[in-house]
C-alpha cells in the first residue's frame, strides 16, 4: 500500500486539489495573488518594457541612444535630476528623522497616544492638490501667516514661501511625513520592549539605550520608510507646479517628462526621461538597501517568548 492511499480521496479517486498542491509546497490561498500579478504584468511590467523600447526609438532618428544623449547634453533638462534630488532627498530624510523619535516615544504607554497618532497620521488622507491649495492660502504673499507677520511688525514685506523651493518642500513634508511615521511606527511596535528595559538594568542611560538598542532595531523599518518616502517625493508633480516655480528652481524631472509628452508630443523622449527617473530612483534605493543589508535585519525580539 502506498502512503498516498491513506490520504482522503475525492469520489473520482483523486486526492483533493489542495492536498495535491500541498505536496508541491503550494498553498491554494496563494492563488488569490494571481489577479494582482496579472494586473502588475499588464499595467506595470508591460508598459515599462514598452516605454523602455520606445526610449530607444528617437523621433528624430540618430541612433538608439540619441534621446539619452540629448537629455544629458542639454543642461536645462539635465538639471531636473539634481533639482528633484535636492527636493526629494532632504524631504525624505527630514520625514524619517522626525518620525523616528516620535515612533520611539509612541511605543510606550503615553497619555493621549491615540489622539496624537490620529492627528499625526490624518494628513495622509489629504490630496496633494488640497495641501497645495492650503499652502497658498496660508503661506502665500497675501496669506494669513504673512499678514500676521507683517501686522506684528516682524517683517516689512511678506516672505516668499510659495512659488519656490520652500513651498514644494513644505508640501512634501506635509504629505510625506504621515506615511513615514506610519511605516516606522508599524515596525517599531513589533520590537520587544523588554530589550530596552534590559539595557536600562545593564546601566545604559536613555541616550545610550536609544543608539545601541532601539535605533539599530528600528533601522530596517527606517530604511524601508526612507525608500518609500523618497520614491514618493521624487515623483513630485502637482505641488511642484502649484506651489513651486515650475520653469525654474522646482522644474522637477516629472515636469520635463510631462512637457516632452504633452507639449512637444515626443513620447519617445518622454519615455526616455521616465526611464532616467526610474534609474535614479533605483540607484538611491539600491544604495539604501545595500547599506541596510550590511547592518542587522533579523528578528526584533530576542527569543521565542
Amino acid at each position, binding site marked *: 500500500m502506498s502512503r498516498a492511499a491513506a490520504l482522503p480521496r475525492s469520489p473520482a479517486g483523486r486526492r483533493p486539489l489542495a492536498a495535491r498542491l500541498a505536496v508541491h509546497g503550494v498553498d491554494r490561498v496563494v492563488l488569490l495573488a494571481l489577479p494582482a500579478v496579472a494586473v502588475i504584468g499588464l499595467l506595470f511590467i508591460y508598459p515599462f518594457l514598452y516605454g523602455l523600447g520606445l526610449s530607444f526609438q528617437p523621433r528624430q532618428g540618430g541612433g538608439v541612444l540619441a534621446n539619452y544623449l540629448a537629455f544629458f547634453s542639454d543642461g536645462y533638462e539635465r538639471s531636473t535630476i539634481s533639482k528633484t534630488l535636492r527636493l526629494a532627498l532632504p524631504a525624505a530624510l527630514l520625514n524619517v528623522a522626525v518620525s523616528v523619535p516620535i515612533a520611539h516615544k509612541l511605543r510606550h504607554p503615553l497619555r493621549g497616544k491615540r489622539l496624537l497618532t490620529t492627528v499625526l497620521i490624518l494628513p495622509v488622507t489629504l490630496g496633494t492638490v488640497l495641501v497645495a491649495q492650503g499652502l497658498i492660502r496660508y503661506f502665500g504673499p497675501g496669506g494669513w501667516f504673512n499678514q500676521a507677520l507683517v501686522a506684528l511688525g516682524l517683517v516689512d514685506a511678506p516672505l516668499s514661501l510659495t512659488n519656490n523651493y520652500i513651498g514644494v518642500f513644505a508640501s512634501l513634508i506635509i504629505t510625506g511625513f504621515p506615511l513615514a511615521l506610519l511605516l516606522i511606527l508599524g515596525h517599531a511596535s513589533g520590537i*520587544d520592549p*523588554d*530589550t530596552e*528595559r*534590559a*539595557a*536600562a*538594568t*545593564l*546601566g*545604559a*542611560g536613555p541616550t*545610550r539605550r536609544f543608539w*545601541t*538598542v532601539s535605533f*539599530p*532595531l528600528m533601522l530596517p523599518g527606517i530604511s524601508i520608510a526612507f525608500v518609500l518616502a523618497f520614491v514618493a517625493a521624487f515623483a513630485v508633480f502637482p505641488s511642484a507646479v502649484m506651489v513651486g516655480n515650475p520653469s525654474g528652481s522646482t522644474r522637477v524631472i516629472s515636469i520635463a517628462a510631462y512637457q516632452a509628452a504633452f507639449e512637444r508630443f515626443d513620447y519617445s523622449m518622454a519615455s526616455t526621461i521616465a526611464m532616467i527617473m526610474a534609474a535614479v530612483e533605483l540607484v538611491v534605493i539600491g544604495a539604501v538597501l545595500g547599506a541596510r543589508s550590511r*547592518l*542587522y535585519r*533579523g*528578528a*526584533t*525580539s*530576542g*527569543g*521565542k*517568548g
Partner: protein
Amino acid sequence: MPTPKVERLRIEGVTKAFGNRLALEGFDLEVAGGEFVALLGPSGCGKSTMLNCLAGLLPLSAGTISLDGKRIDGLPPERRGFGMVFQNYALFPHLSVRRNVAFGLHAAKVAKHEIHDRVDSALRQVRLAEYADQYPSQLSGGQQQRVAMARAIVLEPALILMDEPLSNLDAKLRTELRTELRRLHQELGLTTIYVTHDQSEALSLADRIVILRQGRSVQVGTPEAVYTEPAGAFVAAFMGYRNLLPAQMKQTRGGDATVLLADGQLSLRGRDRTDGHAEALVAAVRPEDLTLHEAAAAPDPGGDNVIPATVAVVEYQGNEVAVSAEAAGGLRLQARTTLRVRPGDQITVQVSPSRVLIFAEDS
C-alpha cells in the same frame, strides 16, 4: 562562598497602584547579602510588580527601598546596578552573544581588554564559551537564557533579579537550568530575588520563600517551614495540599481539632490551625499522605480518619498511580498509591491526624 557585595536590602511599605487597582499593598521584606529569596504566588499577585519596582522599571506609589541604608527607590534603573533576567530573555537580537554580554561593561566604560576577559569568564560560567560569536536567534531557548544570565552576572551586580526565567523552557531544560542557577548562586554568592509561580522552583532554589497574595505577603520562611507549616489554606494550596476539603468544626482541644466533612457524614481529626473564630473551615491534606487500602483489607471502619470511597479516575505515573476517589456526599479525594486499583473499585482512605491541617477557609 565569596563575600556578597551588599549586606542588607530593605523593602518597607511598598505600595504600587495601577489606576484604582493596588498591585502591591504595604509590602515589607528584608534580604541579607548572599541570600536567595523567591517571591512565589499566582499570576496577578504582585510578584513581578515588586521585581520591576526593585529594578527601577516602575515607580513606587508609596514606601521605600534601601540598600545598606541608602535610599534607592528614586534612582533610574541604570543607576541601581542590579542585574535582571527576563522571562522572554530580552537579548539584543542585533548583537552577537559576546556583544550582548559585554553590553553592560561597555556602558560602565570598562577597559577593552578587561571586557574581553570578563565576558570570556562569564560565558565559561554559563558553559557557553564556544557560542561567543553566534547571534541569539541561532541559540536554543535554554542557551539564550544562559546568555541572559551571563549578561547579568558579568557586571557582578549588588542584586540579581529574575523574573520567571525558566517559564518559557520545556520541563527537561527547566530542571537542568534550575541546577545551573543554584550552582551559580553558590559559586558567586549573588544576592538574588527570584520571581516564580512554580512552587517546586521556589522550594529547590530559595533560601527563603515569600508567598504573595493580592499584593501582600502572606508567609515568609525557609522552604521547609513553608512546605511543612503553611500559614493558611492559600499557602497550603500552593504547597501541594491538593485536598482542601470544606469542613465544619466539631470540637477542638489542645491544638487538635475534629471536623465534620460532607455535611456531617464523615469526621476527620487533624491539627488545629484556626484562630478559633472561623466558621467555614478547610481540612488540608497532601495526596501522598493519604493511604489507600482495598475494601477487603480495610482497617476498622469506625477507626481514626478512615474514609470509605470509590475510585473514580486513575492516572498512571510510573511507580505509582494518582487516584481520584469519591467518598460520601460527593467528597473528592486525591491520593497516590502503589496499589493496582481500577475505576469503580471500593477502597478505604486513611490519613494520620498529624498530616491533616485545619484552616479557616479564607486564610
